[in-house]
């Protein structure tokens, strides 16, 4: 009763072209049935994310650990709230990050939980840069 072969195949890695995404814009792609936000962050967002003392976070993690080195402007997170699974809205909330309308969890511009009932940061899916403007998720 575990996922069958075609389901697993449909979950094979996908490639996403980042060139059309302007600075400050984000897109949503689906992989393995889950929505994935790809954000082209502005310098302001990156600085805001990095200036927060990590120990004050409910789920401590540095911004650097959540992005790929040399590609700091790209944030790739799974858009599923870690509380009860709703899809947060991008570019909303007090931290210019994500806001989940179901129970009010707020994530920052690095996808880390800042306030609300969600216990953990938005998970980062496995991905790598195949070129400067293309990533492979999965």
């Amino acid at each position: 009763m575990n996922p069958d072969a075609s389901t697993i195949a449909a979950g094979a890695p996908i490639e996403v072209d980042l060139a059309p995404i302007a600075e400050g814009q984000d897109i949503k792609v689906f992989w393995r049935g889950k929505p994935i936000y790809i954000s082209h962050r502005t310098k302001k967002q990156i600085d805001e994310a990095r200036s927060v003392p990590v120990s004050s976070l409910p789920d401590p993690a540095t911004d650097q650990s959540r992005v790929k080195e040399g590609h700091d402007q790209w944030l790739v997170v799974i858009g599923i709230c870690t509380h009860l699974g709703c899809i947060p809205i991008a570019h909303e909330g007090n931290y210019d990050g994500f806001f989940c309308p179901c129970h009010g969890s707020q994530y920052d511009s690095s996808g880390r939980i800042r306030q609300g009932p969600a216990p953990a940061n938005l998970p980062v899916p496995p991905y790598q840069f195949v070129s400067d403007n293309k990533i492979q998720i999965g």
Partner: protein
Amino acid sequence: MSGPSDFQPTNPVIKWIERRLPIFGLVHSSFVAYPTPRNLNYWWTFGAILSLMLGVQILTGIILAMHYTPNADLAFRSVELLVRDVNYGWLLRNMHAAGASMFFFAVYIHMFRGLYYGSYKEPREVLWILGVIIYLLMMATGFMGYVLPWGQMSFWGATVITNLFSAIPYVGDSIVTLLWGGYSVGNPTLNRFFSLHYLLPFLIAGVVVLHVWALHVAGQNNPAGVEVKTEKDTVAFTPYATIKDMFGVSCFLIFYAWFIFYMPNYLGDADNYIPANPGVTPAHIVPEWYYLPFYAILRSIPNKLAGVIAMFSAIVVLAFLPWLDSAKTRSSKYRPLAKQFFWIFVVVCVLLGYLGAQPPEGIYVIAGRILTVCYFAYFLILLPLLSRIETPRLLPNSIADDVLAKYGKKVASIVVAFVVAGGLIAGSAQNARADEEVTPPSQSWSFSGPFGKYDRGSLQRGLKIYKEVCSNCHGLSYIAFRNLADVGGPGYSVAQAAAFASDYKIKDGPNDSGDMFDRPGRPADYFPSPFPNEQAARAANGGGLPPDLSLIAKARSYERGFPKFIFDFFTQFQEQGPNYVSAILQGYEKKPAGVSLPEGTYYNKYFPGHAIKMPQPLTNGQVTFDDGSPATLPQYAHDIATFLMWAAEPQMEARKHLGLQVFVFLILFAGLMYFTKKKVWADAH
């Protein structure tokens, strides 16, 4: 089995069968000659009502399963086409959906009866535990059943509840993957839920057999809580209990019929008329009303795993009741302290149910926590304590004595408590849409009320408006051209509907060369959508997706607030959808100062958030009518809302017509049953 085996058939056929498989004797000893305490009140009819509801659900479910398609791309449409095209499909669907609620309503009364009268005490512990197992199976069945229509609430309810299992350490994620059959709720999930939803009711039936067997070994409890001592204490099941059950059942059926025929969507959520969209979460995810108290308990605990444990414990604690409450006196009738705390417990459950539908903010969170503590305190602290310190009142010597003693307890207060409870819970499921928004004004509609009908002229004008204006962006894909000639619709003839269809170009094919081609529409075709796919629709509309309008009048609603939602149940108010549609069309206003609108949106007074992507579609004079009706915006709004209500429910007139016949029948039947019961019981009181 208990009961006298005095079955002596005279019929030779029955004697032949009886010798080989004594089934007639079994039925006779269990349901005819079976000695029943003579002081049972109507709270004891709910066992029969539950058996009936299980049978109704299985029967309607099996027939529905003949027309339903358990595939994520096809499920929603299969349910809608079932409702529209299958003979009495609307009736089957309403019976099954309302039936689930009635099933739970009856089971909660049945369980509260058990709580109050101590029916779980020795020697009925196993009977009680079997009941808890049935209840758990019912909850699983109901949950999976709600997922099947694959609406927004189906999908997201499934997502939230299956995610709960990820809280279990070590094996949690594997369990969730097993439940999903994939990496998220999707087609494999729907398929396996359908399989299990079909299976579980038969498991329930099996456990019910054990439940009735366990009951018949111990004999029924009774309101005095005093065991049967002599023959004077009992009457034969048939005709005494049978006729009393028949009367109870017929009253229950009247209540059930009210939902089926007159308020089919009262207990549901408008969001479930929107097809499931994995990319959009509804603003308020609310389970069906019968899960609300447990949902409230789940959300009260800030820790994910602890919340899940608390929620399941709230059900499992019931199984331990015979040992938590060790008082020797069974019935709360003779336990003055326990009786008061019982009613407080009922209020706690009702309030938890109300909270389960509210957004988990502010005072609701605090209240939820206090009430969760109260709920568990009742079982874990209060009942054990009372069994040690309470002095019960003097019990009657026997059931016969109890019957001869004076009745006259305040039944009214119990009735009031249940009505308030039921109303609050039922209405709170609607209250989930708590917005600060402006409420659309209530208009008068020709189709409202028990005798409402669609105004044919209004439907025809609405169709004209749709065809000339709305169809440029919005599809109507559940309406076929032949529906225009259906009874209870706009009233066109078959020829007119065919002519209307032939105006349209429908894509068909492939032809023998393998190409797709256009041909004139036929009555069997559905209204074509203006865009071939979602992406084309979004590209043409600035990124917004104009929704298909077939179900819009049932997919939109707004909160009515307390106490309106209670009165609505009796006045049959269910026109939130048309009120909303009409209000939106007339709600375009100049943007107030100080309000900023995102680019590409327009200010609308009634649209939640006030920023709507659709520009004002209708203005005065835009559409002219042949029948001389005024070409004004309010007229358009009224007519298009009426037309869309028909599009959402073409069978409404048939539903109300049959409803009237059923009600007349049921009221006469209940009356007959009542007088028959009185006659049968005349010598027993």
